[in-house]
């Protein structure tokens, strides 16, 4: 009997671990491909972007530039492929890996518990603590799946004599990036034990990520405060110094954090009630019927937390852009290499406006990702069956979708103007001469690609609902990859045309091209109308 019980437990453990691993490994490998390609593209482009030693020397002038270092971390050895690649893609990819790690962990633990499926696991031949540990092992397989392409692609690129990054350095870099996924997976696992819903677990993890980023910004903006870097998981990544003098010592706090989070989580999973969080929550609530008088109000009420979080993130981004604008503009003016890179994006002048024109492309991508989250919300409302509650009452389908899309479009406009406004506030504090009107215009200028993404998302939702979320994010990832490619080399005109981001001019470096913007937004609108027509005619579709 005992032996049979042991075998049953082993089987149960395997089931939890394998199920979780399967769900984490596929997206992990996919993101690893994107990360590996981004890093490899940075490395390959260096030689053509900065062919002369004069151009490379120009880049080294960025080293010690507080504005750039505060934004994306320390700048070292910019006269080498490795140093440039580490700065250009390191922090960006690391933070994306961390966000992915957090989301996948809360989905597989708290999300499964929210949905009631976790109960099926832990009612079998396993304990709650054991199941949490097994799910952690499964998530580890996801991190490994992310690590492999993140290592292989740059290592392959590094073999080229023009790049010359060794296998060891690529290995270390990929490990540093994957440590971001691993740390925030561990934080997500812990947050899943503490919070009683996935939404709250995500908020908790996001708050830790934001504080980590702020701490490292503080550390990088003032040498006297450099010690604060050791308080931040993102600071530990900086201390690893991948590609610029690897220091494995910083893996120690990373390892300690991961082990501590997992150990506390397993203990907490054993002690707390299933379905509840370890943190106390209230049971009863006074009704707040604010906004609950109709479908439009409900949409606002449901999307409010997500929209508020995105707007806070976008305003912070705009503010940072503005704060560093003077210093960055000066650096740009003296760096022919970077000027050449941004010239490929259509920016021909130098200075503060050129810098903003360049970085607002990132703002455009962020706003597009934010609006894609609205497409996910629309589809999830249908897939989870909650939409049925509205559509069996006197609510017309076209109206429901139109209201949701209008809220999405309104959010895009508000967010893009706030990015511009926040950039202006930051710039003014640094005595920049850029006017509010010009920066608001530059903000609105990033809206059309996002409206286009929203329209495409609505179109696919109307005709092919189960693909809506995937296609919407794929459009953004594709556009962003094309964007990176465009900055690197003079690519094929037809290829570049497929990215909506490249159809907007880099305001405020140049005047916004409102005609192109109107075309893009108009195409988005037509696609959205098509989506609404399709939705009215099709069956509601479950998951």
């Amino acid at each position, binding site marked *: 009997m005992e032996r049979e019980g042991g075998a049953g437990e082993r089987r149960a453990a395997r089931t939890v671990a394998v199920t979780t691993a399967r769900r984490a490994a596929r997206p992990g490998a996919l993101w690893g491909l994107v990360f590996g390609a981004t890093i490899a593209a940075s490395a390959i482009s260096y030689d053509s972007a900065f062919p002369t030693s004069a151009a490379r020397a120009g880049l080294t002038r960025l080293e010690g530039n507080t504005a750039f270092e505060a934004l994306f971390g320390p700048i070292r050895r910019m006269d080498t492929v490795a140093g440039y690649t580490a700065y250009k893609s390191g922090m960006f990819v690391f933070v994306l890996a961390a966000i992915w790690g957090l989301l996948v962990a809360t989905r597989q633990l708290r999300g499964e518990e929210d949905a009631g499926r976790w109960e099926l696991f832990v009612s079998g031949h396993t304990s709650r603590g054991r199941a949490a540990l097994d799910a952690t092992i499964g998530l580890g397989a996801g991190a490994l799946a992310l690590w492999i392409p993140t290592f292989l692609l740059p290592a392959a690129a590094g073999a080229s004599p023009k790049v010359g990054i060794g296998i060891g350095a690529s290995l270390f870099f990929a490990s540093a990036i994957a440590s971001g996924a691993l740390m925030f997976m561990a934080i997500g696992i812990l947050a899943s034990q503490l919070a009683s819903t996935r939404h709250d677990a995500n908020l908790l993890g996001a708050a830790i990520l934001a504080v980590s980023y702020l701490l490292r910004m503080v550390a990088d903006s003032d040498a006297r405060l450099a010690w604060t870097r050791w308080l931040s998981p993102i600071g530990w990544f900086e201390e690893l110094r991948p590609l610029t003098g690897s220091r494995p010592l910083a893996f120690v706090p990373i390892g300690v954090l991961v082990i501590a989070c997992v150990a506390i989580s397993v203990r907490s999973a054993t002690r707390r009630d299933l379905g509840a969080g370890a943190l106390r929550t209230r049971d009863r609530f006074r009704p707040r019927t604010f906004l*609950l008088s109709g479908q439009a109000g409900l949409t606002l009420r449901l999307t409010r937390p997500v929209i508020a979080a995105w707007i806070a993130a976008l305003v912070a981004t705009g503010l940072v852009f503005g704060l560093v604008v003077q210093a960055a503009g000066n650096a740009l003016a003296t760096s022919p290499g970077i000027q050449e890179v941004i010239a490929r994006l259509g920016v021909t002048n130098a200075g503060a406006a050129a810098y903003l024109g360049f970085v607002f492309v990132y703002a455009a991508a962020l706003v597009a990702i934010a609006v894609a989250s609205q497409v996910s919300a629309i589809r999830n409302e249908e897939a989870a069956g909650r939409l049925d509650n509205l559509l069996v009452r*006197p609510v017309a389908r076209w109206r429901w979708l139109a209201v949701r899309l209008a809220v999405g479009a309104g959010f895009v406009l508000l967010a893009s103007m706030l990015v511009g406004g926040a950039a202006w506030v930051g710039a003014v504090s640094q005595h920049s001469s850029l006017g509010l009107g010009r920066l608001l215009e530059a903000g609105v200028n990033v809206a059309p690609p996002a409206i286009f993404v929203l329209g495409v998302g609505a179109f696919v939702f109307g005709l092919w609902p189960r693909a809506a979320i995937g296609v919407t994010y794929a459009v953004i990832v594709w556009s962003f990859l094309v964007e990176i490619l465009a900055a690197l080399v003079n690519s094929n005109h037809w290829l570049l045309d497929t990215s909506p981001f490249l159809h907007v001019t880099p305001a405020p470096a140049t005047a916004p091209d409102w005609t192109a913007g109107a075309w893009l937004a108009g195409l988005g609108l037509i696609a959205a109308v098509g989506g609404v027509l399709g939705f009215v005619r099709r069956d509601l579709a479950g998951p």
Partner: protein
Amino acid sequence: METAILTQGLSKTFGDTRALISLDLEVPRGEVIGYLGPNGAGKTTTLRLLLGLIRATEGRAEIFGIDCQEDPVGVHRGVAYVPGEVNLWPSLTGEETLHLLGRIQGSVDRTYRDALIERFGFDPSKKVRSYSKGNRQKLILIAGLMSRADLLLLDEPTSGLDPLMERAFRDCVQEAREHGQTVFLSSHILAEVEAVCDRIAILRAGRLVEIGTLADMRHLSALQVDATVDGVVPDLSHVPGVGAVEVEGNRLRCRVVGSMEPLVAALAGANVRHLVSTEPSLEELFLAYYGEDAAPEGSPDGA
């Protein structure tokens, strides 16, 4: 009499699966009709077609004369739907959910709503995510009933409710009937259907195989006959209308469809000491339609 629900050749195909095949149904206003069928028979598909949530492959349906596919919003003004599977917004409380759904429906009998909350012993101050399955079911049931809509479409509305709450639900259906509301009750619980419904429709593999009052159905169906004879039970294998014969010594058990006369004639020489015939319960009727051996006998179209 005004027609509440009318379907003509209503059909729905999902890929290769024919979920509903040419359904012809007419439900007059004020009737309480039970809609029976095993899992996958097409009950929920019928309801989703009536609500316009899915498109008919063929045929049409109307509710109070309004086409379900052409004008779903018009249909919904007079309909309240209670789904079997409850998916609500986890971040709203019960009270907030009732407020929202009432506003969207457009009409709420507030006094009745409060009475329902009381009757079902429902605590509306909690968030939906913390409700048990039964409490979620109560919430969606109250949300549906509180509108006092002319037509109640109920899809297994008591799944997850305890027997006390089931009783409370039957009272609600009774009140709806007294109020002149039409009730379309899809259910697995035969006792519930037997207790509250005027007519019963039975669905099998997407086809309507029987519709009528329970009395009609009993009349058409096989009677269970138990008899004891002195001596040997005669061979009944060729007696018309007699089936499922079981003989144990001098005791006989069989089923009879149609007239009892041939059986009585066959037993005439056997000196019957004791004979009892029983009308089938709804459960037996139901099993007769789905049971492997007896199904074709009781089914009028032989399906």
